[in-house]
C-alpha cells in the first residue's frame, strides 16, 4: 500500500508538471470542509432541536401525570396544549433518523399514522401489551395520544369520563401514562446519545463512503422530504397514490385543526436544515446550500441552491391557502391539496436528481460494483 501511494504521488507530480504549461488560471477554490458542515449540523441544529423537543416532552409528561392525578377538563385542556407543543416540536427532529434514533426506529415508534383505534382499545381493556414490539407501532406515539385525548369523544366532559370511569378508568390512565413515558424515555435516550459519544463520532465520520455521516444524513433528509412530508402529510390524504382522497389519513386526525401547523413546522425545519440555519436563530452556518454553492464554483453550473430554496418557498406560499384541517381541505377542495403536492414534488427532482448528482451521493447505499 505504501509503495502504491508513492507511485500515485509520482504520477500526480508528473501530471502536475505536464499541465503547468497550460494557461489554466487555477481559480482559488478553497477546499470545502465537510467537518465544519457536520459540526454546524450537530451543534447548532440537531442537538438544540432535540434539547428543545426533550423539554417539551418533559412538559407533556408532567401534564400527563397532572391529568392522571387530577382528572378534570381543565387539566385535559392543559394536556392537550402540552401535546400540541411537543408534536410541533417533534417536526424539527423527525428527519434525523440517524445514530440512536435509527437504531431504535425512533420515528416509527413516535409518529405512525393513521393509528388503529380498535387495537388501542384492545390494549387498554386487556392491560397487557408490549410497546417495544414492532407490531405495536400503530398503537402508540403522537397519533395514539391524539386518539386518547381528542378522539374518544366529541365533548371534553365525555373524554374525561373515560378516565374517571370506576372500572375501566384506571386502564385508560395507565395506557396514557405508559405511552407518554415511553416517548419521553426514547427521547432522552436519543438526546443522551447525541450529547454523549455520538456527536463526535458523527462529526468525525466526515468521509465520502456510503456510511459516512453526510451520505446518511442527506439520504435521511431526502427520504423524509419525500415520504413523510410530501407523501405522508399531503400526497396520501389527497389521494395521489390511491386515486381517491383519503380524509382519514391526515396527521393529528382527531385534533383536526393541527395538521397544517404540523406540515408548516416540518417544511420549515427541512428548509432550515438545507440552509444550515441555527435552531431558533437567524444565523446560518455551513450546510447543503453552502456545499452546493462551493461545488458550483468548480463546475460553473446553474444556481441549484437558489432553485431549491425558491421551490421550498413556492410550496409554502401555495400551502398558505390550505385549511388548518387537511381532512376538511381534502373533502371540500382537494385540488388545492393536489397543487401543494405538485409544488412539493418539483423539489423532489431538484433534491434527488440534481443535488445528489452535484454532491455525488448515492441513493441509499446501492452497494454493488460500478463500471
Amino acid at each position, binding site marked *: 500500500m505504501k509503495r*502504491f*501511494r508513492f*507511485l*500515485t*504521488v509520482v*504520477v*500526480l507530480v508528473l*501530471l*502536475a508538471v*505536464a*499541465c503547468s504549461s*497550460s494557461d*489554466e488560471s*487555477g*481559480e482559488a*477554490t478553497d*477546499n*470545502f470542509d*465537510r467537518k465544519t458542515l457536520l459540526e454546524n449540523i450537530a451543534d447548532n441544529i440537531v442537538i438544540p432541536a432535540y434539547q428543545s423537543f426533550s423539554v417539551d416532552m418533559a412538559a407533556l409528561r408532567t401534564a400527563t401525570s397532572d391529568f392522571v392525578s387530577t382528572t378534570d377538563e381543565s387539566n385535559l385542556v392543559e394536556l392537550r396544549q402540552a401535546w400540541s407543543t411537543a408534536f410541533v416540536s417533534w417536526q424539527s427532529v423527525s428527519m434525523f433518523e440517524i445514530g440512536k434514533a435509527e437504531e431504535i426506529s425512533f420515528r416509527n415508534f413516535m409518529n405512525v399514522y393513521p393509528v388503529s383505534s380498535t387495537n388501542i382499545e384492545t390494549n387498554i381493556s386487556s392491560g397487557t401489551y408490549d410497546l417495544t414490539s414492532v407490531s405495536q407501532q400503530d398503537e402508540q406515539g403522537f397519533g395514539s395520544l391524539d386518539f386518547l385525548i381528542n378522539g374518544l369523544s366529541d365533548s371534553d366532559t365525555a373524554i374525561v369520563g373515560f378516565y374517571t370511569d370506576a372500572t375501566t378508568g384506571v386502564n385508560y390512565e395507565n395506557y396514557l401514562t405508559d405511552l407518554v413515558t415511553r416517548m419521553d424515555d426514547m427521547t432522552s435516550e436519543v438526546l443522551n446519545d447525541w450529547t454523549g459519544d455520538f456527536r463526535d463520532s458523527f462529526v468525525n465520520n*466526515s*468521509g*465520502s463512503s456510503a456510511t*459516512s455521516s453526510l451520505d446518511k444524513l442527506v439520504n435521511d433528509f431526502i427520504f423524509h422530504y419525500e415520504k413523510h412530508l410530501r*407523501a405522508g402529510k399531503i*400526497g396520501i390524504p389527497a*389521494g*395521489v*397514490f390511491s*386515486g*381517491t382522497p383519503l380524509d382519514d389519513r391526515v396527521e393529528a386526525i382527531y385534533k383536526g385543526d393541527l395538521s397544517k401547523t404540523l406540515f408548516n413546522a416540518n417544511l420549515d425545519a427541512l428548509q432550515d436544515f438545507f440552509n444550515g440555519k441555527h435552531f431558533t436563530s437567524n444565523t446560518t452556518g455551513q450546510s447543503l446550500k453552502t456545499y452546493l454553492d462551493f*461545488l458550483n464554483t*468548480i*463546475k460553473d*453550473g*446553474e444556481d*441549484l441552491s437558489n*432553485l431549491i430554496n425558491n421551490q421550498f418557498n413556492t410550496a409554502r406560499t401555495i400551502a398558505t391557502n390550505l385549511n388548518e384541517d387537511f381532512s376538511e381541505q381534502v373533502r371540500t377542495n382537494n385540488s388545492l391539496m393536489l397543487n401543494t403536492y405538485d409544488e412539493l*414534488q418539483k423539489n*423532489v*427532482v*431538484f433534491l*434527488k*436528481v*440534481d443535488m*445528489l*448528482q*452535484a*454532491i*455525488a*451521493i*448515492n*441513493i*441509499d*447505499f*446501492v*452497494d*454493488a*460494483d*460500478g*463500471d
Partner: protein
Amino acid sequence: MKFQLNEYFKKNTEAAPLAVFRIFFGLMMLISIIRFWSYGWIDKLYIQPTFFFSYYGFDFIKPIGNYTYVIFLLCAISAIFVMIGYKYRLAIIVFFLSFTYIELMDKTTYLNHYYFISILSFLLIFLPANSYYSLDAKLKGVSFQKIPSWTIDVIKLLLGIVYFYAGLAKLNSDWLVKAMPLKIWLPSKYDIPLIGDLMQEQWVHYAFSYTGAIYDLTIPFLLLFRKTRIFAFIMVVVFHVLTRVLFPIGMFPYIMIVGALIFFESNIHHKILQFISRVSGVKKVTFDTNEILNIQSRRVKIIKPVLGVFFVIQLLLPFRYVLYPGELFWTEEGYRFSWRVMLMEKAGYANFKIVNEKTGQRFYVDNDDFLTPFQQKQMATQPDFILEYANYLKSHFEKQGHQNVQVFVESYVALNGRLSSQYIDPKVDLGKQKESFKHKTWIIPFKDEIKGL
C-alpha cells in the same frame, strides 16, 4: 495476402502465456464469485427483487428463486476446473453459459466488465488453453509446449479492442472540454489520504480526463512493442489501482492487470509457472515436451469463420449508435456493449401515473412497491428500463382489476452536471409502446449538444 494469412496461421509460439492466462482467469473468476456471494449480493440482487429487467429478446431468462445459487455454484466450480485445466472444454463452456445466464437475468446489474468476461469466456472456448500445464494434459500424458500463435493473439486483440474503444469513447466534449463527469466524481473523494485535497483542483480533473483518454488509446500498442512493454505494464498497474481506489469497481482492475500479462514474452510465464509448480507441487518439467500442437484442420475450418464473425461484431457493434438519431448519452440507444466506461454521471427520477382512459381517474405508483433502490436508480435514466417497467405496471394493475389502464411517466434526468430536464414525453401512454430496436420517439430530445464520437 491470402498466402500471408495462411503463413500466419501456421506460426507457432510457446503455450505458457495461454496456460498462465487460463490459470489466472479461472482464479479471478472464482474469487469474483466468492466475493459476490459473500457480500450477500446474490440474495440482494437476484432473490429479493420481485421484478427483473430483461434484455430485449431474452425475457425468458430470469432468476430461478433459491436455485439461482446453483447457477452461481456451477459457475464457481467450472471456474475451478478452468483454472486447473480439467475437462477444460466442457468447463469453459459451462462457465460461459452460467456466467452469461447470470448477466442476462437482470440488466440492472449490467457492467461492461461483465460483458467483457462473457465474451472473453466465449473466445476461450475455441482456444487450446489446456494443452500445457493442465490436469487434462497430465492425465492424457500429452502436453504441448507450442501452440499456434493466433490462439494467443486473439486474446491480445480482444484486450486491445476493449482499451482502444474505451479511449475512442472518451473523445467527446464533455470529457475533454468540461472534464465531466470527473469534475463531479473526484471532489467527492476528498477523504482519500494524501491525494484527497488534490481532488478539489480543476487542473487535476482535466489531467485525469486527458491521461485517461490517452492511456486507453495507446496502452494496447505500448503493450504490444517490446521496448515500451515494461513501462506500459507499470502504467496498467498504476491506472487500475488508482481507479480501484477512486471508484467502486470491484475485481475488474485486478482482472485487467493479470490479463495484460499475456502481452509479455514467454520467459516471464515460464517463471510464473515455475513458481506455481513449486507452490502446488505439480511439476512443470513434465509438461516441457517441446511438442507442437496441431489443431485439426477440420476444427480450424469451423473456428476461423466463427472468430472472424466474432471480431467483426466486436468492431462494429460499438458504432451501432450512429443508426439512431439524438444524443447517445441521453437516449442510450446503442450505449451498452460498446466499452463506454465511466463516461456519464446520470441521475434521474421517474414518477409513474396510472390513468383510467375512460373516467380520467388517476393515481401515482410508489416505485418502492415493485423495485429495489438500485433498480429504481437504473430505471430512471434508461428509456428501455422505463418502457419495460411501464408495460409491467400496466399488466399488474390490469390483473388487479383496473380498467382502461394507461401509463404515463413524469421523469427528469440530469446528465454530467447539467440541470435536470424532462426526459420522457409525459403525454405518451407507455402502456401502448412496445420494445424494439427502433428509435424511441417518446424520448424528449437532449437540450444541449455533446460533440465527439
